[in-house]
């Protein structure tokens, strides 16, 4: 335990050693003079008042005091030596290396480490800076000690052929909830959820945040099959708990999951000991080497430094909409791929959950992401935040609301089935047969997880054995043959989606760099390539089934090789670690009937739009369209559909920005420089001029419902006129967002009135609207919910441009307006392009309009609705 002691930077170099006061073998103490040295310096002498001063060189002899305790074993300098700069002076054998310290006390000699001594330049507490014990932060060790402890651990693990596994609690192996509704359901056997909740364990915490939460029960739902999973896994792994909950919470949960303390023992680390409330860090537990550690967690953003070791688990969402009760500290999660596992996705609560996830997704950036964890004000603020969240959950009882909503939805659905027989095509999802329960326990993630962990363990020890054999042959047995679990995990993962090139559409919020997004990183991690635009070598287009991006979808449909799949496909690939068969996830099925798909689009757009205005149109649209159009315009306005398509196919790879260097430019750059003002203006002009032809096209639209599939697909490319193509569509998008802004105001009254309207119901309403006519408006503010049939406001539409404006405003309130406007516009382009047909149509429509006017004045409203349907039929 000898240590070289340096002279220190505080001496006035150059110095000369005059005399060594101690000899080899002497005991030395701190602050004891060890040697004398001399140094030269300039001094101002003379008469400072008279101004006659001069510099004179002085030589001073000083002593150097020991900064260390112990036995002097060897001098590294000699008497008379001239020393120019700081260097080692002696070797000291210390009595104690102070390698383990507890609360400022040396754990080996009991000395107080906080004493500050003028002779030393460093503090003794700095000698043991690493905190590596699970349940204590004030026990610190030195790097050497840490390494020693860890090597012991590794040896022990290798002997028993195990690895370490760090397990997250919330939403990984359990889900907690403090909604008192759960307790009530547990007691009530007649409740539909009784079956689901009856095995939920609960406990109370004395130190919960806030008064309200102090006496509430925590309900802990373990993931299905958890007991068996942990039992089997613990044969291969030593388990650690690492949670963002408080210590008391973590211990209670550990007791629920593992009553005998066989699995986790006392290897539990919580937020209280973590030292950082935003991130988890493997180095906190394994400061030297993380080669034998794997992590399972549902969030990867909390492990910024340990991504390779992480096996990301799809979050367990049993209590729908509750999320992670301990995550109020963390930034909002950006990586939600689905509303749960694929099987979950078809549950009755899916719309609600989706909305929830959309709201979460759109939550945007939280300001407190990278702030220092120990800032007391931040911590306090966030504790308060959590308190508020807790109180909200207890008071609002979200689960009860969910169940009530489901019940109501069931009733509505029954009504709807009656209504949908009225002839109008209603696209309501298949009506539920019995009373739905809010809580469904159909998660199978742990099966896959166990497979992955087993595979990792097997691969790891296979590699270790071969390494060791090689090392033994070389006569070198040690820990150097330990492979890195992180690397092995990476290798295992990177084969999963090898050879795929994946493009995302509508999955990420606009403006997010896909290469740095969580989903993007994961895709790359699993060995696939990422693309920003549907190009030649793209194999998969992953769309947000709730609101697929049009452009990429259309581009993908032109290429039969590109498989268009819902994001659930990606999620199940990630959780199963295989290239899952795409068939059940194919999106094309819905596109087959474009009319319906169109309706679906509009509805889901509206749903998302309420909570999240960002996450709407796929980012690269503007640009992609921009480019295609520019090329096509000069080459041939009057090309037929087919030829345009072909030429596009030829040109595209070189022209579309899919060749952009990875991660360098965002695909929406093109939109940034776009002149929205001029686009708006153009749109105004355009609408004003085309108002008369407006209705005609609508009629045509309805007429061609079946063909619309193709027409819509081709609409962007067949519009020869480049500028107008961009402008209205871009402007529409702008207007859409503006309208949605006003929506929040305008909708306020109607929202109150709609308060009980469930998504499913709205969906039905909007779809039946589409059924009659795209342009139909409600004349009154209160839609006739009883009949479910829309009331066309023809009188207003007939009034020309002035009322056209009115209608537009009203449209803002109309939930279906987004899609209407787009469809309308494109229908109009069709019209322009096919001039002849248009003329005929106009004539026909003019006639019909007159007829309708007459009818509208005389006839009653329901008749109007029926008549609209007839018009579509014609």
């Amino acid at each position, binding site marked *: 335990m000898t240590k070289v002691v340096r002279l220190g930077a505080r001496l006035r170099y150059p110095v000369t050693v005059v005399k060594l006061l101690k000899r080899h073998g002497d005991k030395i103490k701190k602050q004891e003079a060890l040697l004398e040295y001399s140094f030269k310096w300039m001094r101002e002498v003379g008469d400072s008042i008279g101004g006659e001063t001069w510099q004179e060189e002085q030589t001073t002899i000083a002593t150097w005091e020991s900064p260390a305790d112990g036995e002097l074993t060897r001098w590294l300098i000699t008497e008379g030596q001239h020393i120019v700069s700081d260097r080692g002076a002696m070797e000291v054998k210390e009595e104690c290396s102070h390698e383990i310290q*507890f609360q400022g006390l040396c*754990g080996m*000699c*009991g000395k107080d480490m906080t004493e500050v001594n003028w002779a030393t330049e460093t503090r003794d507490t700095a000698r043991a800076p690493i905190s590596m014990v699970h349940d204590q932060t004030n*026990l610190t060790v030195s790097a050497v000690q840490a390494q020693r402890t860890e090597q012991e*651990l590794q040896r022990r693990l290798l002997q028993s052929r195990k690895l370490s596994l760090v397990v997250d609690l919330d939403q990984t192996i359990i889900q907690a909830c403090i909604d008192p509704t759960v307790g009530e359901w547990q007691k009530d056997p007649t409740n539909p959820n009784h079956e689901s909740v009856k095995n939920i364990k609960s406990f109370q915490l004395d130190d919960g945040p806030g008064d309200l939460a102090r006496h509430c029960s925590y309900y802990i739902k373990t993931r299905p099959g958890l007991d068996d999973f942990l039992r089997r896994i613990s044969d291969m792994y030593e388990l650690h708990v690492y949670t963002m909950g408080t210590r008391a919470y973590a211990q209670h949960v550990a007791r629920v999951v593992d009553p005998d303390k066989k699995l986790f023992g*006392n290897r539990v680390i919580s937020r209280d000991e973590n030292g950082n409330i935003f991130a988890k860090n493997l180095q906190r537990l394994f400061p030297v080497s993380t080669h034998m550690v794997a992590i399972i967690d549902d969030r990867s953003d909390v492990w910024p430094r340990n991504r390779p070791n992480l096996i990301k688990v799809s979050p367990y969402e049993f209590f729908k909409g509750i999320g992670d009760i301990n995550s109020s500290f963390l930034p909002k999660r950006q990586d939600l791929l689905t509303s749960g596992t694929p099987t979950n996705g078809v549950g009755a609560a899916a719309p609600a959950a989706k909305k929830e996830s959309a709201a979460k997704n759109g939550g945007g950036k939280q300001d407190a992401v990278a702030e220092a964890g120990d800032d007391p004000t931040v911590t306090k603020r966030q504790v308060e935040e959590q308190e508020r969240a807790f109180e909200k959950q207890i008071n609002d009882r979200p689960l009860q609301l969910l169940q009530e909503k489901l019940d109501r939805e069931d009733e509505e659905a029954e009504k709807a089935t009656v209504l949908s027989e009225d002839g109008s095509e209603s696209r309501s999802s298949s009506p539920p047969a019995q009373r739905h329960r809010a809580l469904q326990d159909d998660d199978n993630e742990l099966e896959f997880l166990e497979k992955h962990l087993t595979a990792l363990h097997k691969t790891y020890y296979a590699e270790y054995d071969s390494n060791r054999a090689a090392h033994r042959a070389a006569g070198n047995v040690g820990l150097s043959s330990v492979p890195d679990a992180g690397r092995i995990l990476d290798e295992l993962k990177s084969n999963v989606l090898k050879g795929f090139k994946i493009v995302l559409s509508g999955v990420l919020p606009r403006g997010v760099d896909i290469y740095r997004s969580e989903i993007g990183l994961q895709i790359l991690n699993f060995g696939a390539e990422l693309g920003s635009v549907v190009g030649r070598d793209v194999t998969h287009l992953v769309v947000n089934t709730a609101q697929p991006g049009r452009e990429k979808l259309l581009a993908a449909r032109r290429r039969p090789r590109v498989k268009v799949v819902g994001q659930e496909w990606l999620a199940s690939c990630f959780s199963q670690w295989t290239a899952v068969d795409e068939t059940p996830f194919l999106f094309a099925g819905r596109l087959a009937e474009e009319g319906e798909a169109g309706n679906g689009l509009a509805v889901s757009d509206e749903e998302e739009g309420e909570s999240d205005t960002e996450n709407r149109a796929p980012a690269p649209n503007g640009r992609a369209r921009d480019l295609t159009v520019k090329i096509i315009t000069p080459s041939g306005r009057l090309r037929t559909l087919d030829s345009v398509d072909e030429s596009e196919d030829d040109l595209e790879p070189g022209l579309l920005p899919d060749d952009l260097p990875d991660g360098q430019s965002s695909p929406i750059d093109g939109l940034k420089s776009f002149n929205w003002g001029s686009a708006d203006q153009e749109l105004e002009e355009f609408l004003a001029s085309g108002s008369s032809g407006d209705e005609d096209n609508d009629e045509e639209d309805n007429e061609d419902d079946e063909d619309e599939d193709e027409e819509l697909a081709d609409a962007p490319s067949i519009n020869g006129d480049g500028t107008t193509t961009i402008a209205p569509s871009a402007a529409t998008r702008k207007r859409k967002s503006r309208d949605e802004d006003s929506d929040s105001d305008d909708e306020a009254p109607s929202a109150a009135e709609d308060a009980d309207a469930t998504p499913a119901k709205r969906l039905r309403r909007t779809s039946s609207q589409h059924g009659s006519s795209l342009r139909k408006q409600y004349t009154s503010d209160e839609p006739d919910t009883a009949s479910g049939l829309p009331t066309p406001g023809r009188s207003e539409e007939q009034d020309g441009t002035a009322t056209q404006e009115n209608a537009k405003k009203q449209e803002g309130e109309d939930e279906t307006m987004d899609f209407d406007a787009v469809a309308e516009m494109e229908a109009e382009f069709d019209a322009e392009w096919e001039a002849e047909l248009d003329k005929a149509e106009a004539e026909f429509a003019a006639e019909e309009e007159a007829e309708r006017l007459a009818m509208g004045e005389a006839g009653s409203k329901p008749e109007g609705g029926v008549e609209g349907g007839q018009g579509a039929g014609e």
Partner: protein
Amino acid sequence: MFFLHNLERRVTLHPSYFGRNMHELVTTKLVKDVEGTCAGDYYIIAIMDTFDVSEGRILPGSGLAEFTVGYRAVVWRPFKGEVIDAITQTVNPHGFFAQAGPLRLFISSHLMPDEIQYDASATPAQFTNNADIVIEQGTHVRVKIIGLRTEVGEMWAIGSINGDFLGCLQA
């Protein structure tokens, strides 16, 4: 080591308590305030009696009355070198924590006999010599204090079980 110690403390009383049994109230408040606290390098365990309760003085501005109370209390002061009995709380690879009344002790693996080794595979983890000595959570141990540190209202100690008659206590 326990001592009977004469101490003095200033107790303030709210005006609403002014009245006949004021001195009783002062004593009650004193007991509530002081018992079980750590005053510098000793713990006040129990107050035996009070004497010499001074006249109350009204504090200007607040109206509270201040009494100077002399009292006799049982205090416990741990000393370096003292041997005490404690209960094991948690065990980790570097050593174990033990609690002796209000005092938290850490006994590192360096301050144990060489034959006592950490065994992580046992549940719960323990220090053992693979014979009669097993130190795990809940084990009673006899510990010699080798280091002490105090802060306001807190005290920590380093203990050792390296010595005759130290270590695991057979129940």
